[in-house]
């Protein structure tokens, strides 16, 4: 059997199976993240949240999915049909594809490539295309305004995210995500790089267009922003893409700063628990913070958003990078490559 998986056909089949084993739980996770968000927001706002469909409302995501499936897809008259249909596919496809390199346990990644961080960064920087194409192809002013806002916002926050990732790389000495997690055996990078950890998470909120940075949607001024013209499954794909991106950013935060699949308590009964559990646990905590922030903070004004990205986060992350590199060089702590 092992010999079969080393032939060309075997590798293809094995990769397909691995992808399936990743994508199916991811999609179920995305479905239940919507439920989780609504329940947690309900609890925070002293409401009940969805609790009618099935026990504790657990079938709610499937009911929503069925409703979306049976609705009519409407394409606006002046729209660029092909791009209009492609945009949600791009958003959702990129959100799923990025998961290929995230290790959920030691060497448990579909592709354990040696430039994993760059791959993640490249894919997340492509995410803006789904939004900007959707905004333009809809031929609607609200959608276009939303797309422009979102494009400028994502490009701005990527810069400081890039510097933070570089700082992590200086500490670890490898671009491989598996190595990055293993380098945190003794000390999570969130502790020495605490300010960067916070900035990374906030930039992640901006990168996924989540509250308080959800100006791309901005219900109160531009209706629903870039997906105002979308309906039925094309809308659902945007929705799923946004939530998959949230899980992805949480996964990135976990991998880069919170020690990935490693147990937070490094002795016997806790290290015996499989790493996948710890990974999911940490991702869930990050996702809870995503929801918590959305239920707590009001939306920023656009100029505040830009000022925060360029005048606060960028200088801090740049100076921190230089400082970390200087300290590590001075004390000879730089990792051997």
């Amino acid at each position, binding site marked *: 059997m092992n010999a079969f998986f080393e032939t*060309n056909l075997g590798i293809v089949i094995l990769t397909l199976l691995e992808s399936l084993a990743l994508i199916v739980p991811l999609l179920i996770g995305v479905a239940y993240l919507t439920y989780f968000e609504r329940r947690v927001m309900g609890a925070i706002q002293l409401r009940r949240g969805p609790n009618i469909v099935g026990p504790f409302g657990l079938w709610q995501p499937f009911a929503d999915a069925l409703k979306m499936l049976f609705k009519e897809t409407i394409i606006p008259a002046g729209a660029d049909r092909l*791009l209009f249909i492609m945009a949600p596919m791009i958003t959702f496809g990129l959100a799923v594809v990025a998961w290929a390199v995230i290790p959920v346990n030691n060497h448990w990644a579909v592709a354990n*490539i*040696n*430039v994993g961080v*760059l*791959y993640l*960064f*490249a894919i997340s*920087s*492509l995410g*803006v*295309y789904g939004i*900007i*194409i959707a905004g*333009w192809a809809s031929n609607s002013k609200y959608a*276009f305004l939303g797309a*422009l806002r979102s*494009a*400028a916002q994502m*490009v701005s926050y*990527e810069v400081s995210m*890039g510097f933070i990732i570089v700082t992590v790389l200086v500490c670890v000495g490898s*671009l491989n995500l598996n190595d990055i997690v293993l380098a945190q055996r003794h000390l999570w990078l969130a502790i020495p790089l605490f300010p960067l950890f916070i900035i990374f998470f906030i930039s992640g909120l901006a990168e996924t267009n989540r509250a308080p940075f959800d100006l791309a949607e901005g219900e109160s001024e531009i209706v629903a922003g870039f997906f105002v013209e979308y309906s039925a499954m094309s809308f659902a794909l945007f929705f799923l893409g946004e939530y998959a991106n949230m899980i992805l950013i949480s996964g990135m935060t976990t991998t880069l700063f919170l020690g990935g699949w490693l147990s937070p308590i490094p002795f016997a009964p806790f290290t015996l628990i499989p790493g996948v559990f710890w990974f999911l646990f940490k991702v869930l905590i990050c996702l809870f913070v995503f929801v918590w922030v959305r239920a707590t903070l009001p939306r920023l004004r656009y*100029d505040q958003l830009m*000022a925060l990205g360029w005048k606060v986060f960028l200088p801090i992350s740049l100076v921190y990078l230089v400082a970390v590199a200087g300290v590590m060089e001075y004390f000879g702590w730089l990792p051997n*490559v």
Partner: protein
Amino acid sequence: MIANLAFYLFSFILLASAVMVVTSRNPVHAVLFLILAFVNASILFLLAGAEFLAFILAIVYVGAVAVLFLFVVMMLDVDFAAWREGFQRYAPIGALVALVLFAELAIVMAGWTVAPAASYARMFPTPANETNTVALGSLIYTSYLPLFQLSGMILLVAMIGAIVLTHRDRKRAKTQNLAQQHARKPEDTLVMVPAKLNEGAVLPEKEAL
């Protein structure tokens, strides 16, 4: 075999989308084809074993430069049909320029010889058992550090130049002073007025505020 097939597939897509960049009527479509060409170039880098360059190309060109490009083209709303009006008149001059450029390239290429030792090294872009990220890093940050720093300085100067050229001080625009806003306290603007039942509140005088 599979690598060869993949190479021909992606180079075909690259060339086809490059042609589409020039020929498509809609400028936004042209930019999107340009992005497709960038992505395919990055895949070709991957096939050649230069994974660092591949992803840097994707991040810098596709993720940042092309986004801003697309941004501008979408906002400009250029009527490209009007631009093409004088095509027949200017075609001979264009062809002449293209011919000169092509001839120059041909002369340079014909005169370019590669030393035998170098042509051997060209087959192995990175030293064995070293990833090309490490190889590039140790080259750029040791042997070519001054050049690397210099190119950084040139980019910085270009950036400052662009900002100086486009920046204008808007005298009449309303700006906000963040420090001033943060220094505001509730007492400065807010007065609590106790309201009696069935009587309502009596508003204080304007000066009291």
